[in-house]
């Protein structure tokens, strides 16, 4: 079947989709957006979290056909999404070709330098909340959404909002630090 929907502000079309495919599969394997991660495919880890019409959901549990005509924001579009929220600018999105091909190339000491990041993305880097990074995209989408409606969360609020996102590397302490940092920077308007 064919599915048409919007990802990170851009209209996308996926063809020859098998009816049992998840939104996660379509994003990763058909649209060249592998940022949403495939850790459990049973809604238990949150690594595939995306915004579906604004709400954080596990994209592994959304059937591809269910997103027809709907809007999805993935980690690849998070910086633009946050930017739009801050100043109402236009969406950029990640092009299909950019994301599709992987190449082994040297990563210098600040790979990706100059890339525009959302406050929560920057905070995750600064606070040391990233280790293997496999849980990171889902956590970022979930944490960003929480800060959108709860800009001054208590620790218990943060823990509750992120309780659907498993991390195996960090013990969550640096993730807590990162979300606190993003909230603090947000409130200071940094």
């Amino acid at each position: 079947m064919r599915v048409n929907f919007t990802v990170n502000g851009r209209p996308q079309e996926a063809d020859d989709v098998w009816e049992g495919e998840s939104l996660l599969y379509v994003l990763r394997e058909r649209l060249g957006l592998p940022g949403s991660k495939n850790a459990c495919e049973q809604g238990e880890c949150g690594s595939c979290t995306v915004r579906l019409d604004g709400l954080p959901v596990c994209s592994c549990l959304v059937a591809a056909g269910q997103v027809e005509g709907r809007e999805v924001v993935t980690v690849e579009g998070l910086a633009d999404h946050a930017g739009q929220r801050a100043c109402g600018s236009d969406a950029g999105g990640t092009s299909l070709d950019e994301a599709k091909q992987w190449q082994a190339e040297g990563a210098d000491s600040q790979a990706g330098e100059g890339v525009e990041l959302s406050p929560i993305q920057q905070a995750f880097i600064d606070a040391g909340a990233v280790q293997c990074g496999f849980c990171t995209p889902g956590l970022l989408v979930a944490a960003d959404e929480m800060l959108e409606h709860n800009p001054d969360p208590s620790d218990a609020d943060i823990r509750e909002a992120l309780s659907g996102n498993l991390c195996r590397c960090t013990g969550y302490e640096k993730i807590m630090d990162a979300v606190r940092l993003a909230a603090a920077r947000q409130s200071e308007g940094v």
Partner: protein
Amino acid sequence: MPNGVPTKITQGSRTKGGIGESTLRPDGILKVTGEFAYSSDMWHEDMLWGQILRSTVAHAEIVSIDTGEALATPGVYAVMTYDDLPTEVKNYGLEIQDTPVLAHGKVRHHGEPVAIVAADHPETARRAAARIRVEYRELPVITDEASATAPEAPLVHENRTDHHIGHVPHPNIVHRQPIVRGDVAEARGRADVIVRGEYHFGMQDQAFLGPESGLAVPAEDGGVDLYVATQWLHSDLRQIAPVLGLPPEKVRMTLSGVGGAFGGREDLSMQIHACLLALRTGKPVKIVYNRFESFFGHVHRHPAKLYYEHGATREGKLTHVKCRIVLDGGAYASASPAVVGNASSLGVGPYVVDDVDIEAVALYTNNPPCGAMRGFGAVQACFAYEAQMDKVAKELGMDPVEFRQLNAMEQGTLMPTGQPVDSPAPVAELLRRVKAMPMPPERQWESSEGPDVRQLPGGLSNTTHGEGVVRGVGYAVGIKNVGFSEGFDDYSTAKVRMEVIAGEPVATVHTAMAEVGQGGVTVHAQIARTELGVGRVTIQPADTQVGSAGSTSASRQTYLTGGAVKHACELVREEVLDKGRRKFGSYHPAWATAELLLERGKVVTDAGEVLADLVDVLGDEAVELEREWRHRPTEPFDLRTGQGNGHVQYSFAAHRAVVEVDTELGLVKVVELACAQDVGKALNPLSVAGQIQGGTTQGLGIAVMEEIVVDPRTAKVKNPSFTDYLIPTILDTPTIPVDVLELADINAPYGLRGIGEAPTLSSTPAVLAAIRDATGLELNRTPVRPEHLTGT
């Protein structure tokens, strides 16, 4: 204060971003934008999907395999079984090559690979695999020591020829290591109290989030390029190439992004299968396990039965330890022999005990294969000996921390293996520090709006508003070896290049080190900055075009590959200075007389005088070299007495756990899990804290929730999913304050100590001790479940 001082750095100390700073990850931006390419993200034009058919029973003869219908499925490009393997080499294994690439005549555990399929869509491949008909004739299952060593026990592996078969008491025992020192019988006579205990440690899964996956691309030269997540590229290569019938240089491996490892990627998973299918079909083949398959696709932490006897004098001095540790290795050897070595040699913990009698064995059974996981044999032992230490203290009426301090090892103590501990061992100090940390406030769940269930046992499930909740506090300390032991030639390799790019001196570091999330790439860049005085460092992707880095295991990579990078950088620096002397030596006498350093892109004297710019010294020539680097050699343990200088370095951590237990429902909330650890030298303090907190949390998991449950009648796994194999969420994980001690080990680069594993050891027994403190229960098994706390 114990012996030892922090390392002092001279070279590069004024260069920004060097060692000792909390520099940020070089892959951080890629990881937060979703651009970082993990092994499951690989994509290639025209690629196929591989699928593995796994056994549905644990132990059976394979009567027949019919692949006809699967092959006839439209979209299927290949179906392969044992009969299709291209060479005489059909097995692989880390130490013992006992693991069939595809089952041959027999399956030995639930989920063993039997056949593989390549098709144009994962669903096509799954459907085709489901159409392969395998007829099994089931055999009795061996599931524990009794069934493994019974007189008529069937052999898991007939006709063993490996190097352990000569010294094991039964062919269903992979390896046995006794360690005997002093005279336990005599020492027992001096003991005023003797405490015995029997402990059970459950099977833990690494539960890394990035599933086993990778992409094999057939090459025009008949070889194959493999992009994969692993812990040790060259070890994989050594096992893969012979099965494919290819010379190693035709199997080119590149490390793709690794979504965590924790030991679970030491063994091969989909590597050979993807290569076989790619070579057979002539097309790129991608394999990605789902979570269900991942539980069968890698080895787990050995479950263990541990029998301990401790003796002590009335004054609180340990007289002796006698113990027997039985590890269930499952159907294939994997890392079992080395796990036995660790469990036995570290079996009494970080204590002074002159009279010891230890025996550790690993069994062959039909349970899931077990091998490496963070802490590697030392974890199981620590759970048991720390429980024993609390029991002895209680028996003596002593404070458990004071009792430990009284018996704590220090620099110079002899291990049960007779090996002296030749660097700082601040065991008593770590305990002192962790005990001195402020206690978390009581009843944090109380608020003006009523109880906050998120901070109570049961959490969001709303099971208590304070009823039945009792606080408990527990302590534990552990000892872990660093690096590969027992005479293994443990080394790493680094290639370092220095050149001018765009008017700036740039260092390039190329190693085969598997970055699995630990931050090795961050540290390599820091080392290069410190040693070469440059700002800009490029870390090349890890691949097999450079020499082996050894495994990202055993807390060894900062020591070993960090050491190799340091060593290569030092040699590059000498060459650069020689170049400078040749070019500019005649202009300034200090080139010949002063100690020269590279700082901030310049050659300077130790007094700080600038002699030249690196840009001018290098000109348009690059300096590059590749070198291997080794830690001090170790020796094997004597097979009869266990004596020998088997380990190169030890790592110590202590924990204090504060828990609140709902004693009526048996639910536990860990309130705080404080850790003190000696790290020798914190090359990157932020990463050090992250390692300690992450390791601590994995220890918490095995304490209260994590266990792979195997049916003892069928040897089948009952909970291969994240629905029923639970790992801690952020609501289960407490604050983890960390106190880092830096006492240099003068034998190690920068005085550092491998740190990744030690926190996983003491975390579990500390939590168990705290639960015992809250409930008064004995609790001899981990994980502790609500049933155990409620007696139901």
